[in-house]
C-alpha cells in the first residue's frame, strides 16, 4: 500500500461536520421541533421562555438521536434505494458503529436534560418515542408489515404530546388530538410518496402497501385516511384547540385536500404514468402544507387567545 492510497482512504473515511449533521435527519427534526413547539405553547400553562427554549432544544436533540439510530439500523435498506443511498452511513462517509454511538449518546443526553429542564413525564415520553421509533418501528415492524407507515406515524406524532407535557406536566385531550392529527396524516402523506417511488421500496424489500397490496388498495387507503384526518380536524373544533384561525384553516383547506385525495382514488395507473404522477406529487406537497397550516393555526390561536371555540358553540 502506497502513501497515496492510505491518504485517499483516510480522506474517504473522514467525515465532515455536515455528514454528522445529516445523520440527525434535520428535515424530520424541523417538523418535530415545530409540532413540539406548538404543543408546548398551546397549553393553558405559562412557561418561562428559557425553559420552553431549552425543552425544545432537547426534544430536537432527542429527535436527532432517533434519526441517527434509524440511519444505523436502516443502512442495509438505504444502500438499496436511490433516494437514500447517498446518506452518510450507506455512502461510507460515517461508519455504522459511529452512528450507533452518536445516537445512543444523544439519546441519553436529551432524555436526562429534558428531565432536568422540564419534568420526568416529558423525559419518559421522549425515551418512549425513541424506543418506539427504533425498536418497534425501524428494527421490527417496518420490515414485516405493510402497515409500517401507520405504526411509524405514532412515533412522529408524539412530539406535540412531549411539548405539552414539558409545559404542563400532564397530558390532556388537546395533546391527544394533536397526536391523532399527525398519526392519521402520516399514512396518506407517505403512501402518496410511495406511489411515485414504488420501485425503490420493492428493490429494498420493504413491504410498503404499494408493493404488497398494489396501487389500487393504496389509493383507496389514502382516501380513507384523508376522510378520517378531516374528521379529526373537524372534531378538534369542538375542543379548546378550535380557535377561529383553526376553523378557517379546517374549512378552507380541508375540502381542497379531500378533493385531491378523491382524484387519487379514481385515477388509473396508466393515467398517473401519463402525467408523471402529477396529482400524487401535488397531494404529497399539499399534505405538507396541510400539517403546517393546522399546527400554525393552533399556534396563532393560542397567541391571540382565541382558543375555546368549543365553549362558544
Amino acid at each position, binding site marked *: 500500500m502506497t502513501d497515496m492510497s492510505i*491518504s485517499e482512504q*483516510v*480522506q474517504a473515511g*473522514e*467525515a*465532515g*461536520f455536515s455528514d*454528522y449533521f445529516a445523520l440527525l435527519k434535520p428535515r424530520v427534526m424541523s417538523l418535530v421541533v415545530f409540532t413540539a413547539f406548538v404543543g408546548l405553547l398551546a397549553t393553558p400553562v405559562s412557561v*418561562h421562555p*428559557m*425553559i420552553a*427554549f*431549552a425543552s425544545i*432544544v432537547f426534544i430536537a436533540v432527542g429527535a436527532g438521536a432517533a434519526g441517527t439510530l434509524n440511519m444505523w439500523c436502516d443502512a442495509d435498506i438505504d444502500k438499496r434505494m436511490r433516494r437514500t443511498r447517498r446518506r452518510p452511513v450507506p455512502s461510507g462517509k460515517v461508519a455504522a458503529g459511529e452512528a450507533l454511538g452518536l445516537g445512543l449518546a444523544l439519546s441519553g443526553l436529551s432524555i436526562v*436534560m429534558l428531565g*432536568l*429542564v422540564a419534568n420526568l413525564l416529558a423525559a419518559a415520553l421522549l425515551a418512549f418515542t425513541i424506543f418506539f421509533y427504533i425498536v418497534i418501528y425501524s428494527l421490527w415492524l417496518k420490515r414485516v408489515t405493510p402497515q409500517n407507515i401507520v405504526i411509524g406515524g405514532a412515533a412522529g406524532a408524539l412530539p406535540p404530546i412531549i411539548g405539552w407535557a414539558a409545559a404542563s406536566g400532564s397530558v390532556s385531550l388537546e395533546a391527544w388530538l394533536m397526536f391523532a392529527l399527525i398519526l392519521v396524516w402520516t399514512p396518506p402523506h407517505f403512501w402518496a410518496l410511495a406511489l411515485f417511488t414504488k420501485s425503490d421500496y420493492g428493490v429494498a424489500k420493504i413491504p410498503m402497501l404499494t408493493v404488497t397490496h398494489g396501487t389500487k388498495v393504496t389509493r383507496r387507503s389514502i382516501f380513507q385516511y384523508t376522510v378520517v384526518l378531516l374528521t379529526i380536524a373537524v372534531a378538534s373544533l369542538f375542543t379548546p384547540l378550535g380557535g377561529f384561525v383553526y376553523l378557517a384553516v379546517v374549512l378552507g383547506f380541508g375540502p381542497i385536500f379531500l378533493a385531491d385525495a378523491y382524484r387519487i382514488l379514481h385515477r388509473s395507473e396508466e393515467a398517473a404514468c401519463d402525467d408523471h404522477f402529477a396529482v400524487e406529487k401535488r397531494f404529497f406537497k399539499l399534505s405538507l402544507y396541510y400539517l403546517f397550516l393546522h399546527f400554525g393555526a393552533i399556534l396563532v390561536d393560542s397567541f391571540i387567545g382565541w382558543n375555546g371555540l368549543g365553549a362558544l358553540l
Partner: protein
Amino acid sequence: MTIRVEHPLHRRRLGRNLAVGLLLAAFILVVFGVTVVKLGTGPMAGAQGEVISK
C-alpha cells in the same frame, strides 16, 4: 524554511472541531440559562436574601 502540510483532511478536521466547540459552548449557555431561571423561580428562590437578612 518551515514545512507546512496543507491537506483537505486538516481543513475538514478544523471545521469539525470548531463546530463541536461551538455546540459545547451553546450547551453550556443553555444549562447556565436554565440554572438561573430554576434558581430564580424554584423553591430556592429568595434563599440567598434570607441568609443575608439574618
